[in-house]
């Protein structure tokens, strides 16, 4: 329970940064009029980068991008994955085997490679990153959903519901989804953290949203050259990444403990 609260606080910090960035920023993100590599303090709270841009401004925009990447990927991966998992869970044996094999193949394919493929076909943007991460995630979610659905379908209460005349769509909405939801939710929360890291990795490699969108991954990349002279530029985005990912994981752990049915 303590972990859950701590997780909420950590995620809350990033949420707050992102929310404030929507209405107020210390400087214009494209403003290069500041002195270069100013250390923290004074007019620039966290200093400036090698082009004289305010670091805090970019970190705040980066929070927005990280959260968008996480939420977008989880939404896409969740919807696709749950739909595919339900289909596989209900499918005849032949179709189920085919789907399971396809999912395993997709999971075996590295996310970053898939992302490069998507970027090659489309362009380097937040949308492409979300598409690639979401697709890769959907395979993992689908595999979990399939197993959960199969386990629920084997339960007597499904037979009992069918016995009392519930149609399959109704059984799905009333019994299957509510029973797989707690486990799925915890997994999606973990996937959110992984998606944030994946987006940062893509941006670090230059496959994320292009400048002037300051993804944390790209800030890390840009600060690399000056890490010895202006360490804050590399440390700050790193710390924020850790704060968000650890926070999300703590929330996921907390959700697992709070999930109904654990007292059974």
């Amino acid at each position, binding site marked *: 329970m303590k972990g859950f609260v701590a997780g909420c606080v950590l995620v809350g910090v990033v949420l707050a940064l992102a929310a404030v960035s929507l209405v107020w920023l210390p400087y214009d993100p494209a403003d290069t009029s500041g002195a270069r590599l100013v250390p923290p303090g004074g007019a620039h709270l966290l200093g400036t980068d090698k082009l004289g841009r305010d670091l805090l401004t970019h970190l705040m925009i980066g929070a927005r991008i990280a959260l968008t990447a996480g939420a977008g990927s989880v939404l896409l991966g969740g919807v696709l994955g749950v739909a595919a998992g339900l289909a596989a869970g209900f499918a005849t*044996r032949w179709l189920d085997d085919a789907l399971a094999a396809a999912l395993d193949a997709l999971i075996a394919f590295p996310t970053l490679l898939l992302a490069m493929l998507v970027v090659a076909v489309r362009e380097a943007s937040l949308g492409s990153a979300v598409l690639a991460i979401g697709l890769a995630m959907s395979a993992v979610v689908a595999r979990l959903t399939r197993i959960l659905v199969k386990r629920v379908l084997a339960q007597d209460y499904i*037979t*009992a*519901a069918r*016995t*009392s*005349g*519930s149609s399959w769509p109704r059984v799905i909405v009333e019994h299957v989804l509510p*029973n797989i939801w707690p486990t799925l939710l915890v997994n999606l929360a973990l996937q959110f953290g992984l998606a944030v890291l994946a987006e940062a990795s893509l941006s670090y490699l230059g496959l994320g949203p292009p400048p002037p969108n300051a993804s944390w991954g790209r800030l890390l990349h840009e600060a690399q050259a000056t890490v010895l002279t202006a360490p804050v530029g590399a440390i700050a985005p790193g710390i924020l990444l850790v704060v968000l990912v650890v926070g999300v994981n703590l929330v996921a752990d907390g959700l697992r403990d709070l999930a109904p049915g654990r*007292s059974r």
Partner: protein
Amino acid sequence: MTLLDVDDLSVRQADGHELLHGLSFTLARGERLGLIGESGSGKSLTALAILSLLPAGLTAHGSVLVSGTQVVGAADRRLDRVRGRAVSAVFQEPLMALDPLMRIGRQIAGPLRRRRGLRGAALRAAVLAALEEVRLPERIASAYPHEVSGGQRQRAAIAMALACEPDLLIADEPTTALDVSVQAEVLALLDGLVAEKGMALLFIGHDLAVVAGVADRLIVLRDGAVVESGRTEDIVKEPRHTYTRSLVHSAWEFEAELDRLAP
């Protein structure tokens, strides 16, 4: 009036192996038929075949008419109308038969809403009436299955099965998982409700003493085939087949043991 007409019913696995061989019987309004046999004898398969709910990979062959509707090979849409209305069932494991994440009241309300079109206050009243019928207090309606005892859960499952007043009730070992004292209570309750509503009952069990206490007629199954069938009285008095004889004999042995200890 014949509610259930099972004719030459067999159940096969995908590889053609037959698990139930040519079972035939009929059941009319107000009749009580007992299906008895050890585990693996095909009792539960018979129940699932009648409900057309056989697990994937198993297929039913032959004919099963439920209130005149052919169930074998029927489409789901058609079956959804038969299940719950013409035929309903209570299963062995009461904890498993209720959705762990849904309040009991809502689970009983489900069939009432769908079948009888009840809403709001009328629905709530019907749920409470259904609970009262199985002698459960009102507070059970807002409890989750894991919060109530095994006996109460099985009563709730019975309330759910009877909510839409089916013509035929299938009870698949409804008391096997319960404590002996609770077992007697639930049996008496089931017995009373079936008599009161004039339903037909197909009672499945492995314990001769229990099944014989409920059913007028018996079918003895072994390895998926009928060993013996007839009036309960006749079978208990004069079992013809060796397997039936051993069933009756062992039931008496328990009885004799009690008599010896407490004459």
